């Protein structure tokens, strides 16, 4: 009854093309934003921040980035882990090289550097498509990790081969390093996520997004209509890598604090983010949120249920958790191949008519 367009007339094209055309959605969105910025900082504690919220926020940024590349532009990439490593190592070099440089600019610059690297590894996409491109980006993944573990300059020749983030502050509050509080870690990740989601939404609703989708749906027709395939594909790689680089930089500086390329940014990270994008829904901003939620929060909730509520031994629960999450992925993909976002759309469609479906 509440959830519908009837009576909510649009009188301009601006109003017609806004992000949340239904009033109920719009207020829901304001509510969530308000809750995230005003209420969450008061109730968040170390456990929740470290186990659930911060990784969720960071992986959502990565999923947003990969979704632009795969979901919007149709270019399959398995190099996400490698690009996250570029963001992490770029931020490390910037932090240690320029100690006075504000951490926010460090992270943004790390994103820009990753964007440049992404464009470089996106060049093969002009010639190859689909699975073959996936293999080419897989090469990027292995090459980048190899580069970061073998070249001393990247980890400042530290004997362990690890990189660790020194303490940096924003407005006087430490956000990286061991002294960072849960609230400040949470808030900086949240700010980056909201900014990235807003940028992603803007880019995908306009000409840029339409060019990407045109390339995805039918590249030959797109070219004949006037889409420059070179520009469209490389810009998708650049924007996608920018987001992924920011996620990598945040993951290292804010969340992990110390990292080693092969371990923190291995091929499993590439697949994790890829699964988020596929389960969440290709070509949907909401899908990135849903996919990251499913794969980050899902296992933690399962563990809470099995270990803390049912009292099962931890090792058994850990194995079961992997199996259950795997099974859930399968069930999801069979029931709704287009991901949680499509499921969400169907629910909204039904809600619009409820309770009088005729």
């Amino acid at each position: 009854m509440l959830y519908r367009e009837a009576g909510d007339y649009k009188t301009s094209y601006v109003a017609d093309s806004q992000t949340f055309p239904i009033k109920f959605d719009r207020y829901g969105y304001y509510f969530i934003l308000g809750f995230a910025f005003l209420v969450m900082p008061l109730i968040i504690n170390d456990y929740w921040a470290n186990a659930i919220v911060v990784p969720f926020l960071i992986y959502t940024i990565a999923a947003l980035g990969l979704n632009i590349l795969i979901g919007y532009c149709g270019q399959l990439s398995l190099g996400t882990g490698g690009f996250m490593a570029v963001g992490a190592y770029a931020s490390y070099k910037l932090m240690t090289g320029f100690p006075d440089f504000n951490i926010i600019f460090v992270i943004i610059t790390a994103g820009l550097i990753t964007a440049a690297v992404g464009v470089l590894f996106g060049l093969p996409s002009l010639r190859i498509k689909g699975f073959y491109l996936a293999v080419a980006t897989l090469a990027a993944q292995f090459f980048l990790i190899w580069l970061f573990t073998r070249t001393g300059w990247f980890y400042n020749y530290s004997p362990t081969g690890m990189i660790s983030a020194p303490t940096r502050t924003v407005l006087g509050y430490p956000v990286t390093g061991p002294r960072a509080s849960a609230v400040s870690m949470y808030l900086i990740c949240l700010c980056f996520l909201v900014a990235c989601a807003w940028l992603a939404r803007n880019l995908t609703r306009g000409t840029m997004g339409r060019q990407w989708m045109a390339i995805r749906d039918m590249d030959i027709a797109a070219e004949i209509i006037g889409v420059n395939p070179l520009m469209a594909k490389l810009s998708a790689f650049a924007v996608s890598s920018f987001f992924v680089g920011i996620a990598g930089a945040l993951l290292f500086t804010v969340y992990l604090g110390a990292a080693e390329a092969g371990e923190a940014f291995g091929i499993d990270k590439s697949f994790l983010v890829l699964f988020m994008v596929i389960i969440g829904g290709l070509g949907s901003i909401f899908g990135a949120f849903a996919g990251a939620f499913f794969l980050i929060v899902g296992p933690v909730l399962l563990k809470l249920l099995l270990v803390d509520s049912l009292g099962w031994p931890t090792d058994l629960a850990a194995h079961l958790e992997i199996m259950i999450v795997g099974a859930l992925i399968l069930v999801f993909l069979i029931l709704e191949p287009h991901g949680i976002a499509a499921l969400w759309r169907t629910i909204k469609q039904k809600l619009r008519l409820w309770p009088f479906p005729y």
Partner: protein
Amino acid sequence: MNEQGEAMRDTDANEGYVTADGRKIGGVAMEMKNITLRFGGVVAIKDISFDIRWGEVRAIIGPNGAGKSSMLNVISGFYNPQEGEIIYKGYRRPRMRPYQVARTGIARTFQNIALFEGMSVLDNIMTGRLHHMKANMFQQAIWWGKASREEQENREAVEKIIDFLEIQHIRKTPVARLPYGLKKRVELARALAAEPSILLLDEPMAGMNVEEKEDMCRFILDVNDEFNTTTVLIEHDMGVVMDLSDRVVVMDYGKKIGDGTPDEVRNNEEVIKAYLGVAHD
């Protein structure tokens, strides 16, 4: 110019003529000079020359495999001919990529629909207006000033075309859900959205029923009337071709076997032979 305008057709290349129903046809928009297109050993187009005049409906007909679609692909820059040249708007056109050709004001539809299936009708048509949108990536990313202003202006232009082609009710529908006839119409809308100088239609009526064909004919004539768009048309339905077009090029086995008004072509010996299937020697 007199009433028997057709008689004046061959006078001067830049003067044009007046059709029997009183439309003024301008000078030469595009001239194909001795175009030859080969795929390895196969010669798809053999030394073909013809011209397209501003404002006319020009048809290319011929039996299957005659090279009609290849000809259209040459015009839209998808194939580059090995020999010959294209004079467009008075200048010799250099080798171009298809997206560059599109920017010179040539839009087309495809024989088997090439819409972007994952996008809504509105987005598909908006994609046609790419060249009218100049905001760069950063302006788009923050959606301020130029980007959002352009989006509105172009949306208005697109809505006009949506009204014109009577597809208001499906604006927000994903293209994948539309029936065939409507898809063809959306494809025409996407091509029109570019406001092309020359519109290329590759079998716009293939696989349609009589009613849909009539609609499509009406739209093609209306487009030609209203926007004065020069149209090049490939079509197998002879009734449609003879009714719609001002001049017709007939191709067979990659060669031009006839060129002229529908009446002239209809009485052309070689054309009759090609269509009745007389053995080639």
